[in-house]
């Protein structure tokens, strides 16, 4: 895909286009009499708008393309709105911080909020980030010194301090809002009632408040929201996991009749109270776009892994957090941490659960491409942000293999599964939009990123921090509410057990179907 994937987008996609008062949006069937009347009264009625950035244009037809407009400049990711104002909710987190650095370096004006809950909740678990990170005020200062960036920040809780968020939004006037401010942990939501309530309250109701604020203050901005592939679950039928909604050629047949399912939401089967909250979020965002003409991309993100972005590699002070505890560590990151600690890698059951994955820097590239190619008024769209699908057991084998390169003799252990999920299931994930419509060019290779993680975690300062919290690595949070370590079922040397791939494991992309992945190939794909 060439770098100008969004060159033909027009004012209809641009957050600077002032539609209110100019464009009379109506869902069909409502007020068609009003439209008829307006048209009858004014035979020369043309659709015109104004531009917040170019008031000298006055009223004009909104057909200027990004390529034609001097406010949109060409970059390696596509056309970007000059000094586009992006607000990141959850800027202190694993993803928020690297995104803030990347966007600032690219010339975006970046502001962010955080309530520091991630730091608090990891501490609650008795853990800390393996990679030491600075306090926010220091991080901002370091970013300024090293990268020349100027990021605005306020400590705000989006759920309980909505008035402060609104104030910040009034002042900053974001043209895009990246919403990362949710508690991103399935096990955390399953600890007990209080934890479940906290997760759903913060995540679902917090997001709802943000939607109202967007409607009132910046209705022409767009929300790029982090959802999760976990919303979909893993259908035992092996039905493809489409991108949020059925394609138009998906047909329901019943009773000798047929109906197109095109555009209808696909079934969701969340696997924890955290995932249930994300499904609720999806419907809130979908409805807000419908009622208020808001715009949103809902990103069903695969399991994220990695430590590297170009900006963070400039200096240790710019690194993002690395969690390895059972609540906040993601599986590949945890495997590498376990290997360095000499703990046999923990797979649940036979480890034949299949999930979608994406490396950190690829996830950042996705975000940039979505931010610079905003949806149209009222448009809600979903992307599956996945660059590969793997079985957990194959990932453990891959990590063990890379561990050998560092002189680490890694073993694998099978534990009783704390979750309620099928031991074995097919999975076919459709992920075509990011490459097909937004020009994503995935660069991260699994084994290469695992190697980077080993390099970081075997550094003496980082390894010491891992060892200080070794006791929080093994899982204890069971879906049934018990707090007991899982029974060990087995322990073995990598490469000594073969788990034949019996069910479909497939990723459908614009390049075709990556069928029947037999383990992880040499180049790490």
């Amino acid at each position, binding site marked *: 895909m060439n770098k100008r994937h969004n060159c033909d987008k027009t004012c209809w996609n641009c957050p600077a286009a002032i539609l209110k008062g100019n464009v009379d949006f109506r869902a069909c069937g409502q007020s*068609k009499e009003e439209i008829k009347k307006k048209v009858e009264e004014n035979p020369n009625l043309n659709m015109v708008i104004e531009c917040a950035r170019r008031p000298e244009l006055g009223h004009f037809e909104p057909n200027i393309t990004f390529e034609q407009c001097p406010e949109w400049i060409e970059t390696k990711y596509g056309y970007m709105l000059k000094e586009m104002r992006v607000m990141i909710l959850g800027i202190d987190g694993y993803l928020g911080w690297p995104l803030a650095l990347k966007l600032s370096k690219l010339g975006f004006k970046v502001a962010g909020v955080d309530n520091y809950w991630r730091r608090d909740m990891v501490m609650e678990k008795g853990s800390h980030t393996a990679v030491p990170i600075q306090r926010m005020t220091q991080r901002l200062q370091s970013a300024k010194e090293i990268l020349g960036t100027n990021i605005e920040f306020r400590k705000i809780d989006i759920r309980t301090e909505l008035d402060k968020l609104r104030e910040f939004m009034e002042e900053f006037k974001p043209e895009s809002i990246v919403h990362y401010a949710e508690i991103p942990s399935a096990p955390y939501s399953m600890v007990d009632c209080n934890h479940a309530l906290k997760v759903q309250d913060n995540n679902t109701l917090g997001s709802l408040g943000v939607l109202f604020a967007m409607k009132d203050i910046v209705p022409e901005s767009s929300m790029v929201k982090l959802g999760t592939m976990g919303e979909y679950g893993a259908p035992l039928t092996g039905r493809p996991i489409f991108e949020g909604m059925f*394609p138009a050629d998906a047909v329901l047949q019943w009773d000798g009749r047929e109906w197109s399912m095109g*555009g209808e939401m696909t079934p969701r089967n969340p696997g924890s109270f955290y995932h249930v909250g994300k499904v609720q979020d999806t419907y809130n965002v979908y409805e807000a776009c419908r009622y208020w003409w808001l715009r949103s991309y809902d990103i069903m993100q695969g399991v994220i892994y990695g430590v590297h972005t170009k900006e963070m590699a400039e200096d240790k002070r710019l690194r993002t957090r690395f969690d390895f505890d059972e609540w906040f560590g993601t599986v590949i990151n945890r495997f590498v941490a376990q290997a360095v600690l000499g703990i046999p890698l923990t797979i649940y059951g036979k480890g034949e659960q299949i999930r979608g994955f994406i490396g950190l820097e690829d996830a950042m590239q996705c975000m940039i491409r979505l931010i610079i190619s905003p949806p149209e008024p*009222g*448009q809600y769209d979903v992307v599956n942000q996945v660059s590969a699908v793997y079985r957990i057991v194959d990932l453990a084998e891959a990590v063990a293999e890379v561990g050998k390169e560092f002189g680490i003799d890694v073993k694998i252990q099978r534990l009783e599964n704390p979750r309620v999920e099928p031991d074995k299931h097919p999975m076919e994930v459709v992920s075509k939009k990011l490459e097909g419509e937004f020009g994503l060019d995935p660069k991260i290779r699994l084994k290469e990123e695992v190697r980077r993680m080993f390099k970081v975690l075997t550094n003496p300062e980082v390894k010491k921090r891992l060892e200080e919290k070794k006791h929080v690595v093994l899982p204890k949070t069971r879906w049934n509410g018990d707090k007991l370590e899982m029974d060990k079922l087995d322990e073995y040397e990598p490469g000594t057990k073969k788990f034949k791939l019996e069910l479909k494991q497939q990723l459908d992309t614009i390049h075709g179907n990556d069928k029947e992945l037999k383990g992880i190939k040499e180049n790490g794909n």
Partner: protein
Amino acid sequence: MEISDKEFNEVITSKEPVLVMFWGSWCPVCKRSEVLLREIAEDINYEIKKMNIDRNPRATAKCNILGSPTFILFKEGKEIKRAIGAQSKNQILAMFEND
């Protein structure tokens, strides 16, 4: 495939049947239907067009659009058939039958 108020009358007065899908940017069904329409357009000899409801108030008002997407088959300026909501490939092709 996209037409506007300006060329609407010329398009629908064609002697050959032409299918117009009326769509909105807020309509997820419409986006997915567009993909299907492009596929169908490659297989049949008739014209398929689409028109944004919000940006083209005259045609939208004239055609009494009640839901989205709305598919209308026109011929020589007259409405021949209409379907509202997502349509399967078979259902769209069936609109051209007997024409």
